[in-house]
């Protein structure tokens, strides 16, 4: 049993523990309600073989008739073959529709034009290609694109703006990664998916935690006290968090704020979108 499995089995006295009896009806209701009130009955999502999209997918298949859920598998030639296999297994188990479309032919010609592209640029480009497929298929299937970004990566900015961060609805965006693990366990997501090391599969051998330089569990603990509980720097230090780590996460959250907001609009008129033209997203729904 690795650290992530243990995290998924966490006890109820842990501050990060969430009650599945409360969370599941809330999230399933969210998916059902926000989709059907737009007059749509289908949902589509990118299923990577990782834990986040697996949990979003299971929630969707519980909220909607499984035949109304479509999973897209969009591998690149260097993607780990297990990712695709695990995604396909899950889709079969859930009885949802699925489609595999390689993005290799789509991105390689572009990569060839810019041979000096860094792995990060390539990763972002691929994430955005996958987004265009997600939105196109949503249109073809008369479906809403479902998001798969968890609260940890949204807060740390560990995602591609207008790439994997793009969706119409995100059922797991208010759950930290460790909470996603816990819920995944509860939902019976296959062990291969729950226990694999989290990776964006950006390049062979990549893992999130080695790239970030800390574990999700460590980050989640600090983020929970910092964001959810609004604890001061002094309180966080008293809880045993290292000052350098507090600073690092604080910087990450601040630096990535742009990813969580619409683009800035230069104000000219008396009524400007966002600043003084404010309507709910569900306007007219």
């Amino acid at each position, binding site marked *: 049993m690795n650290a992530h499995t243990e995290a998924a089995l966490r006890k109820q006295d842990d501050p990060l523990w969430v*009650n599945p009896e*409360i*969370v599941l009806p809330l999230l399933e209701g969210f998916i059902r*309600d*926000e989709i059907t*009130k737009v007059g749509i009955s289908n949902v589509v999502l990118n299923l990577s073989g990782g834990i986040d999209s697996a949990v979003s997918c299971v929630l969707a298949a519980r909220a909607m008739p499984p035949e109304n859920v479509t999973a897209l598998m969009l591998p690149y030639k260097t993607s780990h073959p297990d990712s695709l296999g695990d995604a396909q297994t899950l889709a079969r188990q859930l009885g949802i529709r699925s489609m595999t479309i390689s993005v290799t032919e789509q991105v390689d010609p572009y990569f060839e034009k810019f041979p000096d592209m860094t792995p990060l640029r390539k990763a972002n480009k691929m994430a955005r290609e996958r987004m265009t497929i997600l939105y196109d298929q949503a249109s073809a299937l008369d479906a809403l694109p479902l998001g798969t970004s968890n609260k940890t990566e949204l807060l740390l900015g560990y995602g591609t703006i207008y790439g994997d961060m793009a969706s119409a*609805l995100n059922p797991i965006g208010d759950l930290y990664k460790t909470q996603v693990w816990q819920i995944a366990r509860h939902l019976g997501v296959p062990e291969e998916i729950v226990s694999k090391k989290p990776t964006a599969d950006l390049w062979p051998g990549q893992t999130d935690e080695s790239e970030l330089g800390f574990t999700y569990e460590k980050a989640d603990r600090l983020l929970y006290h910092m964001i959810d509980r609004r604890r001061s720097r002094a309180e966080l230090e008293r809880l045993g968090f290292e000052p350098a780590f507090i600073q690092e996460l604080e910087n990450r959250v601040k630096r990535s704020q742009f990813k969580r907001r619409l683009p800035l609009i230069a104000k000219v008129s008396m009524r400007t979108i966002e600043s003084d033209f404010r309507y*709910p*997203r569900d*306007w007219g729904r």
Partner: protein
Amino acid sequence: MGFKVGIAQIAPALGDVHENMKRIERCIERALDEKTDLVVFPELALTGYTLKDMVPSVSLRLDSPELKRLMDASERLSIAVGFVEESPDYRFFNSAAYLEKGKILHVHRKVYLPNYGMFEENRDFAAGSRFRAFNAEFGRCGILICEDMWHPSAAYVIAQDGCELLIALSCSPARGAQSDGDLYSADAWQTLNRVYAHLYSQYVLYANRVGYEDGVGYWGGSEAIGPDGSVVARAKQFEEQFLTAELSSDAVRRARIASPLLRDERLDITLRELKRIDRKREK
């Protein structure tokens, strides 16, 4: 005197008064079928909650055709309902009307508009300035709207004003999933409702909505609490439901004999001390 109340735990359509009128009128039909004497709807039942800049386009004057229709319906049963009220001087209130025998008997304008965290009601609404109980067919009533209930002074004033039946309308969002018991919001509200019912020996009718707006789920759990703090009836969470409960002024009488808290309340001391505190604050 015994009477039957209904609480319509509905999911209003956001910003669609026409549609909500239809839904409310269907609930009134249901209430009549179930022979209820009073039906209570949630906060902003005629409009939905997350209105933002829609507020002026969904507001109703007290002489609007929509309220007239509900007044007409109140010939057959009493109705408490939340809506956006537009005053003659063009202010917009988060209000609730109590309709009885074809008339508007009372309007409460929400006093405490939450403006913190996920709420920004102060931007969109004008605040009310009164807490008053009023005489209705089924005894002396008071209305509070959501955040008003989080200020014990509001419930205190209404209780001192003779309230026997406190009607609390809300749009309470589902928040907090880390308890191994109930949702944080449910736990908090159930505590408030029971405390106010018990301490003021009055009925509390809590009407909360369900449905989702902009990702926020409203948890329902509407309830009727007896004047001894006991749960008379409680609705399910997250589902539309028409909840009914049989109430009786006899129960209020018995509770006030058992614990004469209101009889013994020293309003004079409270007033004197509050004035002293107020004088000190001004300096």
